[in-house]
């Protein structure tokens, strides 16, 4: 057994070049046996390329990898697995049509003379699942029938089915609910106690505080910090390392309180009631104003947004510039734009180009007698890409290849091209990493400064309080408080949100 203090894995000066991109530009990583080593970095910083290199899926152009004291070359997935390096990718990549046991042992089946030894396989799978505290998952269950948490456990069991000394977990908590994350942490702790090293990637800083030992931060394909203590390093330091920017500057500056008072109301909602969910909510959004809705999931805040968009049956009055909103088509006609929570499924054509996605809802602007003026369309898209600093600045690139933050910028750019009077933003920074958020906040503020009214829903209180001019606190379908955002702090809002609830 190796000394726990000795590094199990050392990567030095790793360079990986793709056509047109230098994805890794001299990365160093050092992981000890028995530690949870957190890998932090914005989208595009090179995390995925680095772990793919570690999994043997990419071969580095330069640099050395030393594992357990030996310099190694990871020529393929099998080579990595044989050394004891397992990777659990973010997309739970299991085969739905196979049983739990077959998935766990896929690629290294327990077989004799070409025939699967079903009994052995199932027994071994049951044992692994038991070790993970999930003995209730039957090895013969078809994986497609399991909930996400169950699939996560199966992925983990697959990683453990090899003689594993290092497990890479790419955002393992992304698909999990809160109590399931606790179970994940319990498993991680048991693994590290047994001397297994874990490389843990997550966007959730609070998770890193709870489970992590040390942190390595990547930025633009380079290592910018090595071996920071995970619990003690201040958040502001981590964020400024990741972004090269201070946290104070995350939220754009707000106009002075009351500066919207004289401006016309874009949206006026009176006595809005959605049976069973929202009761008698009234508010307004003025030109150039960002109004935030704060509340728990299920408090009715999303339903308010949907009602304003005309997507939900309700009573009460909803008026845009004095004209009543009746249904989605009238909402669109009157000038309401929506950036939905499920960005990938509901807002973007993932295989289309960036430009195509930006101009999508404004095609009417470019068509003359049924022909599209492609040149003007492209020029407008380009202007927005430059304006919003969308990266990479290539209008013809498929939008699927962009990071979450840049995809969201494209959604917002759409409403800059096809000018709206009111924008509804549902969780605008969901899945966007910390650094890219600042950019998005700036874009949202700019939209408002141009005179657009913005109605914002977010689960993250700091976001609502930091970005909005005015905040409505929603509890159990009622607006329990309404005031300038600067007069509120997180603690007070939480009090109001929780008051009277059993939690």
């Amino acid at each position, binding site marked *: 057994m190796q000394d726990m203090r000795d590094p199990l894995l050392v990567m030095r000066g790793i360079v990986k070049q793709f056509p047109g991109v230098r994805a890794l530009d001299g990365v160093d990583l050092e992981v000890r046996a028995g530690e949870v080593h957190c890998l932090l970095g914005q989208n595009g910083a090179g995390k995925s390329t680095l772990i793919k290199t570690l999994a043997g899926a990419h071969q580095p152009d330069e640099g050395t990898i030393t594992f357990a004291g030996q310099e190694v070359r990871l020529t393929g997935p099998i080579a990595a697995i044989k050394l004891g390096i397992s990777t659990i990718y973010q997309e739970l990549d*299991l085969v739905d049509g196979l049983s739990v046991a*077959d998935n766990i042992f*896929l*690629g290294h089946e327990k077989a004799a003379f070409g025939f699967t030894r079903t009994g052995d396989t199932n027994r071994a799978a049951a044992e692994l699942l038991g070790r993970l505290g999930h003995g209730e998952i039957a090895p013969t269950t078809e994986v497609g029938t399991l909930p996400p948490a169950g699939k996560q456990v199966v992925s983990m069991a*697959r990683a453990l089915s090899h003689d594993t000394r290092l497990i890479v977990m790419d955002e393992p908590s992304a698909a999990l609910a809160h109590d399931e994350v606790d179970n994940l942490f319990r498993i991680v702790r048991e693994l590290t106690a047994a001397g297994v090293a874990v490389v843990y990637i997550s966007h959730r800083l609070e998770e890193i505080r709870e489970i992590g030992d040390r942190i390595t931060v990547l930025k633009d394909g380079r290592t910018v910090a090595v071996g920071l203590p995970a619990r003690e390093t201040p958040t502001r330091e981590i964020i400024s390392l990741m972004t090269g920017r201070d946290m104070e500057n995350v939220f754009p500056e707000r106009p002075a309180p009351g500066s919207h008072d004289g401006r016309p109301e874009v949206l006026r909602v009176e006595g809005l009631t959605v049976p069973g969910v929202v009761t008698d909510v009234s508010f307004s959004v003025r030109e150039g104003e960002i109004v935030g809705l704060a509340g728990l999931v299920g408090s009715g805040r999303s339903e308010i947004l949907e009602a304003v968009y005309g997507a939900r049956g309700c009573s009460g009055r909803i008026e845009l510039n004095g004209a009543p909103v009746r249904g989605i088509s009238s909402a669109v006609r009157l000038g309401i734009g929506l950036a939905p929570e499920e960005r990938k499924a509901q807002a973007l054509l993932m295989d289309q180009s960036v430009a195509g996605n930006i101009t999508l809802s404004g095609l009417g602007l470019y068509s003359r007698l049924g022909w599209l003026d492609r040149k003007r369309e492209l020029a407008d898209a380009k202007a927005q890409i430059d304006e919003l600093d969308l990266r990479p600045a290539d209008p013809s690139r498929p939008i699927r290849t962009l990071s979450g933050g840049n995809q969201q910028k494209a959604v917002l750019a759409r409403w800059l091209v096809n000018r709206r009077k009111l924008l509804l933003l549902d969780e605008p920074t969901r899945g966007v990493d910390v650094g890219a958020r600042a950019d998005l906040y700036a874009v949202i503020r700019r939209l408002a400064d141009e005179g657009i009214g913005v109605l914002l829903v977010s689960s993250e209180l700091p976001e609502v309080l930091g970005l909005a001019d005015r905040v409505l606190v929603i509890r159990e379908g009622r607006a329990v408080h309404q005031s300038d955002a600067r007069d509120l702090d997180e603690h007070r809002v939480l009090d109001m949100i929780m008051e009277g609830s059993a*939690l």
Partner: protein
Amino acid sequence: MSQAVLKSAAAADERLARRSPLRRLAGRPEFGALLGAAVLFAFFSVVADAFLRASSFSTVLYAASTFGIMAVSVALLMIGGEFDLSAGVMVTTGALVAALVSYQLTLNVWVGVVISLVVTLGLGLLNGLLYVRTGLPSFIVTLGTFLMLAGANLGVTKLVTGNVASDSIRDMDGFDAARAVFAADLDVGGVRVNVTVLWWLLFVAVATWILLRTRTGNWIFACGGAPGSARAVGVPVARVKVGLFMGVAFTAWFSGMHLLFAYSSVQSGEGVGNEFYYIICAVIGGCLLTGGYGSAIGAAIGAFIFGMTSKGIVYAEWNPDWFKFFLGAMLLLATVVNLVVRRRAEPSR
């Protein structure tokens, strides 16, 4: 934070629930087809008096077997995530190669049979390699080879024989022995059953064994359901896919041999369009077009449904011109039933 706790509390114990045996049966890919076959059998038994006779049943089985042998390998290929549109004409190619080689060179027919095997397996290999190397969808690759084979079948036959059909090889050495293997009529309790029915059952059994009891079977599911994942854990995806294309080629050779030794000569234009019947059998039997799901037994039941529909119409003395109409309706009905059954069986999917 706290809202997440609420949301997950209900979901957490879902996986604890055991499913009843009936539910589990209903979750199998072939369940919908089984249901459909039973309904169709009952239906034809009522409307066609002749349908229940043993000899009629043997005829239905024969029709089912000729398509079923191909449907088995096509189903495996589809579970592996690919299509083979050249499967229909490859049967004809196989038969033509054996017929032309034996007749023109005046050889024992077994020589032709073996050369045909080598050629068809080579064609399967070509399909597979083209797919693996180019990365084009198999739909396109095999559409290309389908058209090329259809053209070559006709062109070569005409060039060699001056005719659109091969010459009869009935009088040649080894014909009777080959016929006994590929196209014999057996007497089973006074009913004549073609030997293809037995071969069909054997192929289904072997394919089922491979799918459910060998590591290759796991790999086939993995290649179709999650190729990226399969590659990441070290499954030889390319080899599996090439193997599946060659599997289709093997059954095409076998079907070609049956065709040749049942009729002693082959029409060079035959087989076009049959590839879709094979796919239909597999889909009725529960295979998904997207791959990663399905069963060989399902494909066999699909072929049985196909056989019942094609012959049932005759026994019911309906106008056989309508055959394709009924087949199309069966296809839609079966896939809808499959969908509904699976949703019912697995509420969490």
